[in-house]
């Protein structure tokens, strides 16, 4: 399958200007190499700092143990799973993996297919909570937009669902998703959904 590449623009935090980036509808070896060779050492340095400063593990970045090589290998060749990546300045800036087999829970869309956002992670140097200043902004939004656009393309009308790590709850509320509360069947993480109307409003805003 050939990878579809579209141009998007991210915010360069240092200059306030825009940075041209690629949104790719796949996670390929180059992205996994970046994750291994660039993300992992950057994240390790942050974790060592947190440990040295006595910050409890509950306040560490909650995706620190995610292994993208494993996640990608587990769904290799399965139609139900798709990946996205954002590449800018020659480096992978964000990754996402979605599952197309899930159905809605929000009362207006119970049982209707949606795109479920399994994992979304932004490179450590773009995460405001991990350092003095992120390099780029807009990576997470670009990946969410890609997932909503996929939902539209698949005929799911923009419906989107996800379990949020506590550190990301505010972000998903800000983009207009409905918080359906903690899910006892999924590590008590909050479950969020985007309805057809919310997806339309979100895409108009982006």
């Amino acid at each position, binding site marked *: *399958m050939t990878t*579809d590449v579209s141009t998007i623009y991210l915010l360069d935090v240092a200059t306030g200007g825009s940075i041209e980036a690629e949104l790719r*509808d796949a996670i390929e070896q180059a992205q996994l190499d970046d994750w291994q060779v660039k993300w992992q050492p950057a994240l390790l340095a942050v974790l060592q700092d947190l440990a040295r400063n006595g910050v409890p593990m509950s306040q560490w970045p909650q995706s620190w143990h995610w292994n993208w090589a494993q996640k990608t290998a587990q769904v290799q060749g*399965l*139609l*139900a799973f798709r990946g996205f990546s954002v590449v800018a300045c020659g480096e992978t800036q964000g990754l996402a993996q979605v599952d*197309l*087999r899930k159905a809605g829970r929000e009362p207006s*869309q119970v*049982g*209707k*297919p949606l795109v479920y956002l399994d994992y979304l992670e932004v490179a450590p140097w773009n995460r405001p909570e991990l350092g003095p200043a992120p390099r780029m902004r807009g990576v997470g939004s670009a990946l969410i937009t890609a997932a909503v656009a996929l939902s539209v*393309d*698949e*005929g*799911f*009308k923009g419906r989107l669902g996800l379990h949020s790590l506590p550190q990301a709850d505010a972000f998903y509320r800000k983009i207009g998703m409905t918080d359906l509360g903690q899910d006892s069947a999924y590590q008590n993480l909050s479950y969020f959904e985007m309805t057809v109307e919310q997806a339309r409003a979100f895409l108009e805003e982006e």
Partner: protein
Amino acid sequence: MVAKRTMTLNLTDAEMRVLDELSVRKDITKTAVLRQALRLYQTIDARVDKGEKLLFENEATKEKAELMLL
């Protein structure tokens, strides 16, 4: 957007009726129903191939029933 190919599908009236009903109930097109069915079938087939079983559990009674796949 991934490029798609077109094919003609031959279905009986009963199959077409089920496809129509699912399309309405799930709020997706008939093409989307079939693509969803293909994804699910491939997922299940891959797991059964690995030696796993497909079970349905009644939430109230906790009764489990195995779905046999041929």
